[in-house]
C-alpha cells in the first residue's frame, strides 16, 4: 500500500514536471523582447576599451526632417485632419500648416528651416477633417462624426495661440477651402444638397448651386466657381453619373457606370468604373471632346490636377490587378495599396513615374487627399494607413 502510494506520487510528480517542461517549451518566454546575449551590462567600468552606447535624448519634436534633400519626405508623425500650404503675406515665404487630428491644434512648419510652431493650442475635440485657407488665417474643422458631428470655423490669431471659433449650425456633408480664402460646403436641404460659400472675412454666406440628390460626392475645385465635379457616392453595385458645376451651372458629363468616381479640372476629368467585370480608368479631354482609356488603372480619389497646367494630374497609383468590386474594398479598408506617384497628362494621354515611395523611403504609402501648394511647387498628401502628412517637391524650382 505504502509502496503503491509512493509509485503513484512519483508518477504524479513526473507528470507535473513534464507539464511544466512542456509549458516552458511552448509558452516559456517571459520577456520576449529582452533576449540579449553576452551583454552583462556592467556599466560604470573603468576599462578604456569598453565603449558604452550613447544615450539618445528623448525626441521632443516629431521624428521628421523637413530640410532633408530628399524630394519625398514625411512631415508629421501624428495623424492629420487637414492641411494647406499658406502664405501669410504676399512677401512671406510659404509654410505648411496642418490641423492635428483629435485635438484640432494647428501647427505651422517653415519649409526652409523646418521649424515647427503651434499656432493654435485651442482644442477642438475629436477633429477628424479640416481645411485651411491659403492665407493661413482661417480653418474649418469637423469635430466628431455622424449625428453628433459639429463644424467649426476657427480664426487663427497672429498674436496668441488661441483660436477664436464658432460652430456653423446644421449638418454639413462636405467642405473645402478655396483660393479666394473662403470655404465652400454642402448642406442637406430636403432631398437635395445646397452648396454655399462662406467668407470668414466678411462673415457672409452665398448660395452657389443645388445638387438634386443627397448621397453626393463632391470633388471640389480650387475656386468657388469651380468646376466642381459631383457624382452619386460610389459603389461597384450601383450606377453613377458625373455632373460638373461651373459658375453655378450644371452640366451632365458623358461618364456613367458602376463603381464610378471622378476628379477633374477645367481641361477635363479622370474617371474609373467597373466595365465587364474589370475596374478601368478613362480620361476625358474637354477641349478635344474625347474620352480614352488611361494606360494605368487609377482610383480618382488619389489624384489632383495641377493649377498651373489643368491638363496634368498627379495620382497615387498601385500597379496591381484591381478586384472588380473596386473601389468598395478600398473604402472599407479591406484593401491597402502601395502607391507610387505618377504624373498623367490628359493632353498627351501618357503617364510617367515620379517616385516610388517604397523605393525612396522604404515605406508603403496608401495615398489620399493629394493637394498642391502654391504654384504647384510642392505636392502634399496623407498616408491613409496612419493619416500622416507627406510632401513631394513636384516642381522645386518654382518658388
Amino acid at each position, binding site marked *: 500500500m505504502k509502496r503503491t502510494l509512493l509509485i503513484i506520487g512519483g508518477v504524479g510528480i513526473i507528470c507535473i514536471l513534464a507539464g511544466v517542461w512542456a509549458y516552458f517549451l511552448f509558452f516559456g518566454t517571459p520577456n520576449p523582447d529582452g533576449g540579449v546575449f553576452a551583454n552583462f551590462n556592467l556599466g560604470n567600468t573603468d576599462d578604456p576599451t569598453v565603449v558604452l552606447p550613447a544615450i539618445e535624448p528623448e525626441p521632443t519634436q516629431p521624428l521628421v526632417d523637413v530640410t532633408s534633400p530628399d524630394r519625398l519626405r514625411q512631415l508629421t508623425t501624428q495623424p492629420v485632419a487637414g492641411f494647406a500650404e499658406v502664405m501669410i503675406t504676399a512677401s512671406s515665404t510659404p509654410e505648411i500648416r496642418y490641423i492635428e487630428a483629435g485635438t484640432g491644434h494647428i501647427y505651422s512648419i517653415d519649409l526652409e528651416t523646418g521649424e515647427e510652431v503651434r499656432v493654435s493650442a485651442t482644442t477642438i475635440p475629436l477633429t477628424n477633417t479640416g481645411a485651411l485657407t491659403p492665407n493661413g488665417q482661417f480653418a474649418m474643422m469637423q469635430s466628431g*462624426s455622424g449625428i453628433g458631428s459639429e463644424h467649426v470655423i476657427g480664426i487663427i490669431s497672429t498674436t496668441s495661440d488661441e483660436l477664436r471659433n464658432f460652430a456653423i449650425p446644421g449638418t454639413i456633408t462636405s467642405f473645402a477651402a478655396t483660393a479666394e480664402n473662403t470655404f465652400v460646403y454642402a448642406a442637406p436641404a430636403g432631398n437635395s444638397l445646397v452648396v454655399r460659400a462662406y467668407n470668414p472675412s466678411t462673415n457672409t454666406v452665398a448660395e452657389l448651386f443645388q445638387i438634386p440628390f*443627397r448621397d453626393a*460626392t463632391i470633388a471640389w475645385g480650387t475656386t468657388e466657381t469651380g468646376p466642381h465635379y459631383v457624382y452619386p457616392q460610389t459603389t461597384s453595385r450601383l*450606377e453613377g*453619373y458625373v455632373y460638373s458645376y461651373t459658375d453655378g451651372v450644371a452640366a*451632365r458629363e458623358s461618364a456613367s457606370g458602376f463603381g464610378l468616381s471622378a476628379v477633374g479640372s477645367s481641361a477635363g476629368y479622370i474617371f474609373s468604373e467597373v466595365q465587364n467585370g474589370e475596374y478601368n480608368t478613362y480620361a476625358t479631354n474637354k477641349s478635344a471632346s474625347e474620352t480614352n482609356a488611361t494606360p494605368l488603372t487609377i482610383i480618382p480619389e488619389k489624384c489632383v490636377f495641377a493649377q498651373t497646367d489643368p491638363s496634368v494630374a498627379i495620382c497615387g497609383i498601385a500597379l496591381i490587378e484591381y478586384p472588380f468590386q473596386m473601389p*468598395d474594398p478600398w473604402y472599407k479598408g479591406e484593401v491597402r495599396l502601395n502607391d507610387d506617384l505618377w504624373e498623367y497628362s490628359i493632353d498627351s494621354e501618357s503617364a510617367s513615374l515620379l517616385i516610388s515611395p517604397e523605393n525612396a523611403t522604404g515605406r508603403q504609402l496608401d495615398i489620399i487627399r493629394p493637394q498642391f501648394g502654391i504654384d504647384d511647387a510642392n505636392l502634399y498628401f496623407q498616408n491613409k494607413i496612419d493619416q500622416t502628412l507627406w510632401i513631394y517637391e513636384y516642381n522645386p524650382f518654382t518658388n
Partner: protein
Amino acid sequence: MLLRVLLLALIILFPSAVVTAQFDAAQFGGTPQITITLDPTHPSPGDLVTASIDDYAGGVYGSEITWRYDGSVVESAANQRQIQFVAGTAGSNTVVEATLQRPQGGAETLRAAVNPVYMDIIIEPQTRVPDWYIGRSLPSLGSQINATVLLNNGSFIDPQSLVYTWRINNKVIEGGPIRGGNQVAFPTPRGASVVVSVTATTPAGDTIARRAVSVNIVLPELGFYEKHALYGMRYFPLTASTPLVGSILTLQAEPFFLDTRVYNRPDVAEWEINSTRTDNGTNNPYEITLRSNGGNSRTNVNFHVRSLQEVLQGSEENITLNF
C-alpha cells in the same frame, strides 16, 4: 328645313374632313403606315441607335431607299432597310429621313426625330454605412430605397414640367403617373435584385425618355474597427492577425447596409466575449472596451445585431483578438 340646308352647305364646303373622319384606312385595318422606328426608342447622348423602316405589309418592296442623316445623304446606306448612327449631344435635334422611290412611280419620305436626353436614375438606399465610409450604401431586404430621376437635355429639365410613371418589378407604384414626381421611396422587395423603371412623358402624353435599372439587394455586413480615444476610428478593419498595442482596446462594430431604422433601434444588439454574453457598459450598443488581463491572451469577441420583425435585417460576426 333650315337645319337641313345648313348641314348640306357644310358637307359641300368641307368634304375632306368628313371623308377622312369616316374612312381612315389605317384605323380600320387597311394598308398600315410605313414608319421609321428607333432602337433604343429614346436614346441617350452617344448611344448607338438603329433606325429601321417599319414595313409589315411589304409596301417597301422594290423601292429605291435613300437615307439622310441631319440632311446629308448616307451613301453607304443606299437601299438598306436600316442604318446605325451615334446619337448626338444632349438637347440636339437630329432628323433621320428615308426616301422611298416606288418602282411604279412616286416617292414617299419617312422621318424620325432623334432628341437624346440623359435619364439618370439615382438610387439612394436608406441603409447605414459608417460616417467615415465615402461609398454609397446598398439596399437590404425591407429597407427603404429613395430613387431620383434626373433628365438633362443640356441642362436639367424642370421635374414639374413632366409626368413620371414609376414601376418596381414591372408594377406601377404611387397609384399611377405623377406630375413632378421625379423622386419616390419604396421598400426593398424580396429577391436578389429589383428592377426600377421610369417613364417620363409630357403632360400631353408624349414620351420623353424611358429607362430601367437593376438594383442588387445585399445582406447586411459587419466589420470590427478600432476606435482610438483621441483620433477616432481607424479606417482598417481588425482581423485576427492585426497587432494590438496596449492593454485597452475600444472596439466598434460597424454594420454596413443595415436598415437605418434597425441600426437606430435594434431589437438584438449583443456582445459575447469567449462565448459569454457581456454588457458592453456604454450607451452605444455598437461599442465595447476590452482590457487585457496581462500576458498573451486570445479573446473571442462576438457581436450580433438584428431586427426581430425582419430577421434578415441583421448580422453576426466574431473576431479573435490577440492582446
